[in-house]
């Protein structure tokens, strides 16, 4: 295969014809970092910090006065906290799908969006982690979940418990995502460092870029590292939401005790994650003027993923309902047909919000015109995330709020202000991190865009004829290992 032999016959160029050379790519992507932040950025950042402050106050109250500050009760032991946990973890999954799975499948379009999506993954997992940690109540003993030889008689955690699997899964996922993201950032941070004029910039990006030089040997290792990390992250991302689903599936609660949970949760996670990627990138490309790199093609492709995964989730919902009826287990039947599908039951409305937002509304993306409509895409990305939040709420709360003992049914679960404040606080954390990221780090992988430019840039396609006649690989083969 010649060096430039690959060119997709069916896909349009990955960058628009406005992108002409390497230097322009650097200029376009580094510009927002070197310019002072816009008024819009400041407004967004300050609002995020305000939300984060609310979250800190909510968590402080909960720690000082105890978990009783939340409205969790006798049957609803998991409420907003675990709903939010699963929702945030799910959002993270799209980033890894884009950065790892699409790398293995050689999907060139990932280069425009992978950096921001991976950042989203890391911030989302940070937010997710807050919920189980603060839910512990005595948070100062959180380290008890880690296995280490201790003075409590060397008492170990239960390695057979899905909750401990979660500890390992989430912390591994966070670590590996961070390493993958940062190893990709190093060459781009070196680009920013070498352009820097200000002293503090030279210092900061000098430290962050680890002294990267762009040596051929380093690039060779960098490519090997990216490929293997992608290979590791692919089963990892599937395992993480599988293990999150085990938190429910390995229990004996009707509505949770379901074997289809792992694939159903993974599809849902990718579904909601892509919606969040759309929300973020539609704003990012507009504000940072990156429409030449995050093109309409990217948005359309992601909408296709949304309609696919949304439909998988829909099939899973219907399968659950069918099995609840077909299985003839009266408790299962009660959980599905009374607690959920009965619109007149106390929380029945949430089931229909879930169905409407996740199954019905994404079907609009069967139409090309809708997939390429920015307003519709933005609106749908919000709708999908509302729907996916309700999916977790339905699974968690409606399965337990009316259990085997009717005497405990009277306690209708609704969150307190501190539960809501905590949730808003994680939005604050997420967006504060994202705003800082978009200001100080290149939001698009510069070296990866350079790499695909000649393969897919419109301008280069016209000039490629002559260049392709001389095969570089023949030469490379001839001289390989000849010293």
């Amino acid at each position: 295969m010649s060096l430039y032999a690959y060119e997709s016959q069916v896909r349009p160029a990955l960058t628009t014809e406005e992108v002409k050379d390497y230097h322009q790519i650097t200029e376009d992507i580094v510009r927002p970092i070197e310019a002072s932040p816009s008024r819009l950025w400041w407004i967004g950042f300050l609002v995020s910090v305000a939300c984060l402050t609310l979250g800190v106050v909510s968590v402080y109250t909960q720690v000082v006065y105890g978990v009783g500050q939340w409205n969790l009760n006798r049957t609803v032991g998991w409420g907003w906290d675990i709903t939010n946990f699963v929702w945030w973890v799910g959002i993270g999954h799209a980033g890894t799908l884009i950065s790892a799975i699409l790398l293995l499948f050689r999907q060139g379009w990932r280069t425009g969006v992978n950096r921001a999506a991976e950042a989203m993954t890391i911030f989302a997992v940070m937010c997710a982690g807050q919920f189980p940690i603060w839910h512990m109540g005595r948070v100062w003993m959180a380290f008890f979940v880690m296995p280490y030889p201790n003075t409590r008689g060397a008492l170990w955690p239960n390695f057979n418990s899905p909750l401990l699997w979660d500890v390992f899964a989430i912390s591994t996922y966070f670590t590996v995502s961070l390493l993958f993201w940062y190893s990709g950032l190093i060459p781009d941070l070196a680009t920013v460092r070498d352009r820097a004029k200000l002293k503090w910039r030279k210092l900061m990006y000098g430290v962050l870029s680890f002294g990267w030089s762009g040596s051929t040997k380093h690039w060779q290792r960098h490519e090997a590292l990216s490929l293997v990390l992608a290979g590791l992250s692919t089963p990892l991302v599937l395992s993480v939401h599988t293990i999150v689903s085990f938190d429910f599936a390995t229990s004996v609660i009707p509505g949770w005790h379901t074997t289809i949970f792992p694939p159903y949760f993974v599809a849902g996670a990718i579904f909601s994650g892509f919606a969040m990627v759309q929300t973020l990138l539609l704003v990012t490309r507009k504000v940072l003027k990156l429409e030449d790199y995050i093109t309409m093609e990217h948005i359309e492709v992601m909408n296709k993923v949304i309609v696919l995964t949304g439909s998988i989730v829909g099939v899973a919902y219907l399968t659950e309902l069918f099995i609840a009826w077909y299985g003839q287990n009266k408790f299962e039947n009660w959980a599905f047909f009374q607690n959920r599908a009965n619109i007149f039951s106390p929380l029945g409305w949430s089931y229909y919000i879930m169905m409407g937002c996740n199954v019905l509304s994404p079907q609009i993306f069967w139409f090309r015109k809708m997939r390429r409509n920015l307003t519709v895409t933005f609106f749908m990305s919000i709708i999908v995330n509302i729907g996916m939040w309700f999916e977790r709420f339905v699974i968690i709360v409606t399965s337990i709020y009316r259990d085997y003992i009717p005497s405990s049914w009277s306690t209708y679960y609704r969150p307190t202000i501190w539960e809501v404040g905590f949730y808003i606080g994680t939005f604050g954390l997420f967006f504060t991190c994202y705003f800082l990221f978009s200001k100080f780090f290149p939001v698009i992988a510069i070296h990866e865009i350079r790499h695909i430019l000649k393969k897919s840039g419109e301008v280069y396609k016209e000039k490629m004829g002559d260049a392709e006649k001389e095969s570089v690989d023949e030469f490379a083969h001839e001289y390989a290992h000849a010293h």
Partner: protein
Amino acid sequence: MSVKKFVVGIFTDEQVLFPAVKKVRSAGYKIHDVYTPMPIHGLDDALGLRQTSLHTAGFIYGITGTTTALSGIGWIFNSDWPQNFGGKSHFDLPAWIPITFELTVLFSAVGMVLTFCYLCQIAPFVRKHHFNLRATDDQFTMVIECTEKSNESEISAFLASVGAVGINTQIAETGWWLGRYDSELPPLGQKGLI
């Protein structure tokens, strides 16, 4: 780590760079390194670099993780503190798979990244001599070492003939030192702390 003299040739197009690498190597000059703003497939072969063994390292770290998890959990549940969970087996392998898998991935990823940093000698506060600041932007930089057999003007002329758009000579430290990018380069041969 030593101070050497280099001739630096700057290219703006990889279509020119590849034949140039070929010609420079055929002529017998010693290419110190080629610095590029993005990975260029085939350039490592053209330079005669061998394939990296980083994958193998990753595999070894991975099986270390697997072994750690299985032996750790096995020892804890069977020997150190054998607890009875509802009469289940003490050697409950299927229930250990999730943690074993996670530790395999964790060890492999962390180990590989650290190995990568070690092999490339990169870390925070590590500073190197950069021959061309636009090597991380849009230019391809070929650095040829001046040896006893070759002289500077000869190499410069040769680089010009193979299509380099900018040529200069630099005396530089080949290794790295602890330093910051906001300070001036220290005098050659005195590259100590900061």
